[in-house]
């Protein structure tokens, strides 16, 4: 319960994290789990690049290669990028809006465990007969034809983890609408909060189509329905639509919080208010809205016809306008500022040109007839890695350095951080820049090898070298984290010296109830305003010290998810005639889940209060 868990035994700490409903601890859980999956996905990426380093390589077999690319994509999108962003959203957003926690702490915990066990379920496929091998898009004709249980692991694993994402998204929407401190109007919300809000709204609308698609897939493969089987009147193109109606907004679900992170970092280290705040907000909303209008640009070559292709081409180009607005606003923020090149700022400065490069190749692919050439070639591989690595991963690395003091009250080593950046940044461009040309020169994507004498050898080797540089960068970051943890030197409040928003004003380490008194927000960049007015405390208060109502920790979310995890195996093996126990497993799992839901519903859990006296003593309410 307290934020100073170090006095407790190891077992107690583990139990504390298993049952916690505190957004700060859930953020740490997301960070650890997301990093774990990021490393797994990264190893898969290295295997891909080693295999493609030279023509006719036989480092991995053809079938295994398809499993690796499928798991690389799925892991990186669903199990690394999403949870790592959730880690920072959880750590920062409640503090940024002056809230005690998210609106539904219990659901927050449930969301995490759903994501985690869904991810574990998916990755267990490696040990239980082979991973999914139909690409992260899992197009229906191939995924229905895929032998073994790989695709079943994909469908059920993503279903479980997707439910977690949906729950977390709803939680953030409610939190941001309802839990803002007095004075924090919508147009005073920091950009990180705004992008979290819009991105959560996208989750709310984008994940249901995926859920539907995955259920169709599960029923087709495990229970004999025919939604996608064209010989039985089904249609495979429906899967493509459902997947991309989810899949395209998913890109914005990921990239908007990345924009948010950079919109916090850039003003901080330029010591200047974000230029064009209201147009930044407008652009965020517009991108979110347009993100739902463009999914068919992933399907230009499917044969939807000229009219559909033309409409989706123009709609896609339109997204470039709000995105361009953002880029120019960032540029104008540093223009006339006082730029301090810290590690997070270095990532932000690296992000701007990289992301512009990724954005413009996106516009090229929006031109439908040109996309007929670029689609499913290495050009698209280069494009989306420029957007995802150059945008989202750089944002995650920047946020790791930037928000480490808020999450752990420690500073990561700056010099090592800059060296990490150099390796990662150069490696990134080295890996993916040449891939544009590989695509233009006729190399299709998702190939496990290529024949010599097609002019593709040199660029592929360069690309592999770049991948190793990126790997070195990531290893350096891990070393940095270890060094910082061993040194264990507290850094206190506002260690960057230029913090602008509420999360930097709060005392460190952050008390488990966050704010002793709810702050009063007097404008955009609250903390900056207080600092400029010489307020040493860093914030004004909206209320006197009163009792604080806190939620109890709960083990129920964990149990609920374990039930689903077990029933997943039951559903998965239901199609095998030699496993008659599968139905029993399915039912037992669901009984556990619904049983724990019933316990949660029927048993009152009113939480507890920290009294005013406890808050005022020297421990500040810590027991």
């Amino acid at each position, binding site marked *: 319960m307290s934020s100073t868990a170090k006095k407790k035994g190891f077992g107690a700490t583990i139990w504390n994290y298993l049952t916690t409903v505190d957004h700060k601890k859930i953020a740490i859980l997301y960070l650890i789990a997301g990093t774990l999956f990021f490393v797994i996905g990264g190893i898969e990426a290295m295997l891909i690049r080693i295999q493609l380093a030279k023509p006719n390589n036989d480092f991995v*077999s053809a*079938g295994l290669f*398809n499993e690796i690319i499928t798991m690389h994509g799925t892991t990186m999108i669903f199990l690394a990028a999403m949870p790592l962003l959730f880690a920072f959203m959880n750590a920062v957003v409640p503090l940024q809006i002056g809230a005690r926690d998210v609106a539904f702490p219990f659901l927050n915990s449930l969301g995490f465990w759903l994501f985690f066990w869904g991810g574990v379920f998916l990755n267990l496929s490696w040990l239980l007969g082979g991973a999914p091998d*139909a*690409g992260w898009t899992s*197009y229906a*004709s*191939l995924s229905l*034809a895929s032998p073994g249980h790989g695709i079943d692991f994909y469908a059920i694993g993503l279903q479980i983890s997707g439910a977690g994402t949906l729950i977390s998204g709803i939680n953030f929407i409610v939190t941001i609408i309802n839990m803002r401190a007095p004075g924090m109007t919508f147009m005073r919300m920091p950009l990180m909060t705004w992008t979290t809000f819009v991105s959560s709204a996208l989750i709310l609308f984008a994940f249901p189509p995926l859920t539907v698609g995955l259920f169709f897939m599960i029923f087709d493969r495990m229970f004999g329905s025919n939604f996608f089987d064209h010989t039985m009147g089904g249609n*495979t*193109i429906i899967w493509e639509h459902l997947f991309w109606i989810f899949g395209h907004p998913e890109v914005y679900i990921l990239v908007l919080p990345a924009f948010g992170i950079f919109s916090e970092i850039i003003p901080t280290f*330029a010591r*200047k*208010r974000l*230029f*064009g*705040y209201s*147009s930044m907000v407008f652009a965020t909303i517009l991108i979110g809205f347009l993100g739902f209008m463009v999914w068919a640009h992933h399907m230009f*070559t499917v*044969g939807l016809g*000229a009219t559909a292709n*033309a409409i989706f*081409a*123009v709609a896609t*180009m339109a997204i*470039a*306008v709000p995105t*361009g*607005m953002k*880029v*120019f606003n960032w*540029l104008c923020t540093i*223009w*006339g500022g*006082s*730029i301090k090149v810290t590690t997070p700022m270095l990532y932000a400065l690296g992000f701007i*040109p990289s992301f*512009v*490069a990724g954005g413009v190749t996106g*516009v*090229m692919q929006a*031109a*439908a*007839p*040109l996309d*007929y*050439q670029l*689609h*499913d070639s290495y050009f698209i591989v280069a494009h989306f890695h420029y957007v995802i690595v150059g945008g989202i991963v750089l944002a995650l690395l920047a946020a790791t350095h930037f928000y480490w003091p808020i999450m752990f009250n420690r500073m990561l080593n700056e010099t090592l951080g800059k060296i990490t950046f150099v390796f990662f940044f150069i490696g990134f*461009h*080295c890996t993916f820049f*040449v891939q544009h040309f590989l695509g*233009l*020169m*006729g190399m*299709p*994507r*998702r*190939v496990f090898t290529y024949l010599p004498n*097609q002019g593709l050898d040199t660029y592929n080797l360069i690309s592999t070298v770049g991948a190793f540089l990126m790997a070195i960068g990531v290893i350096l970051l891990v070393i940095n984290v270890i060094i910082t943890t061993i040194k264990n030197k507290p850094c206190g409040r506002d260690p960057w010296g230029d913090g602008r928003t509420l999360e930097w004003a709060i005392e460190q380490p952050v008390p488990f109830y966050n704010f002793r008194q709810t702050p009063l927000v007097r404008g955009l960049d609250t903390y900056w305003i207080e600092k400029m007015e010489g307020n040493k405390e860093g914030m004004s208060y909206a209320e006197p010290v009163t009792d604080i109502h806190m939620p109890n920790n709960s083990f129920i979310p964990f149990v609920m998810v374990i039930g689903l995890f077990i029933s997943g195996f039951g559903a998965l093996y239901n199609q095998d005639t030699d496993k008659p126990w599968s139905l029993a497993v399915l039912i037992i799992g669901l009984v556990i889940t619904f049983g724990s839901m019933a316990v949660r519903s029927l048993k009152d859990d009113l939480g507890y209060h920290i009294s005013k006296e406890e808050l005022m003593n020297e421990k500040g309410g810590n027991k």
Partner: protein
Amino acid sequence: MMKGLKKWRLFAMLTALIVFLSGCGKNYLSTLSPAGEVAKEQHNLMLLATAIMTLVILVVVIIYVLALVKFRRKRVGEDVIPKQVEGSTKLEILWTAIPIILLLILAVPTVALTYKLADTKAMDAKVADGQNKPVTVNVTAKLYWWQFEYKNEGIVTSQELVVPTGEKVYFNLTAGDVKHSFWIPAIGGKMDTNVDNVNKFYLTFDKESKDLEDGVFYGKCAELCGPSHALMDFKVKTLSRADFDNWVKEMKASDKQVATGDLEKQGEEIFKTSCVSCHATSGVGKGTGLAPNLATFGDRNRVAGVLDHNKENIKKWINDPQAVKPGNTMPQPEKINNGKKFTDQELDALAAYLMGLSVEK
């Protein structure tokens, strides 16, 4: 720190430039050396898009570098508090309007070309007596091989598409098992072969392929379709109209091919007991979709789409198809030869017979 970084960037850019100038890929494969009207139009659209996008990148980079140079804290002073500017409506309008104009410049040709490339009305149009119907190829993509049926000519081939130059060639595309995608990079963009429906598009072929390194253009499957997706290549032979007509004539006579020589005759016997239930050796008709038609096997450029075209590779392929193309549907020899592998002599005979199947020699 930043100085070192800038040098690095310069170095990286120079390297990139050198690598870029070193080539645009092979002229039988690369989209950067278009050899057909469709590819040329797409190439032009790419040049236009690249020009606009380079302009955007340049503008961003110039502002970015200037800002970095001018407004570093070391230069501005450690304790200076910059003016907290809210924004600028004029600038906002400027950087909304200019991109819209740039996008319109790109959008107009995009929409026009989208409609143009989708126009396949001529393939079903009636033609006057005595005139040739446009060449229409029914493409069926199967797990790791391609069938090309010429419906107006009444012939069928596989793995190697043969087309006339200088005219529109129409395609009906479909898949027989899972989704694939039909792509000849140097000739034009791809189109998916769906399992649910038939897709239509056209391509034109400007030059004869005989001058190319292998005498053929390279075609690829561009949609993940299983373990051997990477090996699902096909080849395209482009002939002048006269040569094409001649080829069609020979194809129509291909049902009369007979093996000559003892080894070839032995090979034919083995073929008739073990292979003929799937593979046809006559190019006349519609094509079964069961297995590649072998009427032109001796004229081809590759064995199984990927191996060099010689007898050793034919033997290797027949002896263990799974080792060459994992997951393909050709049976292992034990399945078609009474549970035994073919002997080396039998494989020699089969290879000799197959190499003799030709309409061009």
